[in-house]
């Protein structure tokens, strides 16, 4: 049986792991290669590296990070952040990514999704969708871009269906309301999106406890992504997967 995946996420800038809330006040949080290896040993099913570099030079260093992580990592690696062209995607794959994450560029240039999917296959294309609750609503979300700084007015459900039609093989769905709050994933959002699309959906934003990951799977997520819950050393990936297994969710032992 296909198992549910637990995916730690490393935010990387200029070759170092960084931490901050909503990409503000970033501080150094260690070596990405050592952390990647440690997560694999703990039983991570995949790893996501989000490149939050601000300059071209920093971005070059992030490519080198991907190369070094690839040499030690024998599980799938998705790299996102700043992918704006097929060439960007190709460079990441050449450095060692198995999948590329496309976020803001998917909105500004939707044809990029088709172009990357045609060249590398749908299974290679993860479209990162950042969702924020519409004002005064608790059941409607709009797409936000540019690290949450810009609201687009586009309905998230329709947007997810649209990116799948264009070739997205997977959706990384982040709740911008929950991200960094430690209050759990936005389960209503997960339910709606996983019902609306036929590709796998990765839940992201808000996890602070194994119970949150279990809830997300029950709400329809195929995989759960988390950062701070693992970085802070509060829980290991193994502890989380044990809790999921105890709750009757199929995970890779």
């Amino acid at each position: 049986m296909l198992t549910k995946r637990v995916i730690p996420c490393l935010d990387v800038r200029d070759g170092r792991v960084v931490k901050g809330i909503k990409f503000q006040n970033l501080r150094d949080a260690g070596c990405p290669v050592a952390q990647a290896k440690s997560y694999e040993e703990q039983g991570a099913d995949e790893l996501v590296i989000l490149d939050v570099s601000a300059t071209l030079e920093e971005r070059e260093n992030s490519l080198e990070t991907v190369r070094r992580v690839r040499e030690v990592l024998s599980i799938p690696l998705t790299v996102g952040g700043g992918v704006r062209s097929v060439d960007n995607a190709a460079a990441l794959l050449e450095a060692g990514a198995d999948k590329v994450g496309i976020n803001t560029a998917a909105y500004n240039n939707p044809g990029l999704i088709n172009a990357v999917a045609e060249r590398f296959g749908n299974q290679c294309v993860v479209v990162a969708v950042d969702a924020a609750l519409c004002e005064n609503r608790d059941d409607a979300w709009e797409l936000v871009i540019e690290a949450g700084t810009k609201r687009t007015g586009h309905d998230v459900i329709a947007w997810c269906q649209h990116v799948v039609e264009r070739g997205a093989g997977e959706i990384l769905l982040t709740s911008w309301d929950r991200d960094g709050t430690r209050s759990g994933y936005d389960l209503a959002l997960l339910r709606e999106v996983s019902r609306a699309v036929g590709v796998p959906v990765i839940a992201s934003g808000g996890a602070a406890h194994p119970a949150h990951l279990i809830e997300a799977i029950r709400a329809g997520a195929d995989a759960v992504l988390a950062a701070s819950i693992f970085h802070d050393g509060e829980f290991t990936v193994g502890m989380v997967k044990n809790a999921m297994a105890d709750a009757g969710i199929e995970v890779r032992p």
Partner: protein
Amino acid sequence: MTTKNVAVIHARVGNLASVLAGIRRAGGNPILTEDPDVVASSEFAILPGVGSFVAGMLGLEELGLVDVVRERICANKPTLAVCVGMQILFEGSEENPGVEGLGIIPATMKKFDASLRVPQLGWNNIVAQNECRYLNDGYVYFANSYRATEIPLGWKGAMCDYGGPFVAALERGNILACQFHPEISGNVGMQVVRRWLDVEKQPC
């Protein structure tokens, strides 16, 4: 023991860096090549997975490798085909009707049932037939929308389940074809590649 050189066909698409790193972890020395002579003469060769069935065939055609790969497999030269690399050993695929594969296996790849999440992305457990020399039971990573459903005559293999049984991998003599991605399937995947490199080869 000397490190074994492995020709990796440079298909220009897909996760080649992962394939190269995976071979190094399994103890081989990967050599990225698009030279038909190198592919033909190398003791070991890998046909990596690429985007779609038609892209896989076009990639081989552009490099003039269609006959070279077919001959390697028919001559039982140690060859590992991964994901779409495995699919193009078949006659065709629902993905690109009318596009001819290498036709080594007389069957057609079919899409997973529409009620499932497709592509299948993630770890699934495979069960290998007892007679397998390279394949073992364990969890491996899949990223596929199309699959074969029966182990063809003359091959051994491993089966898996996603909305019904499907073929996870096939082996025959010195040939290994994996629908899953051994290069990113952790220790289980690494062991499969290592056995393919290390098990005593049958005469070509």
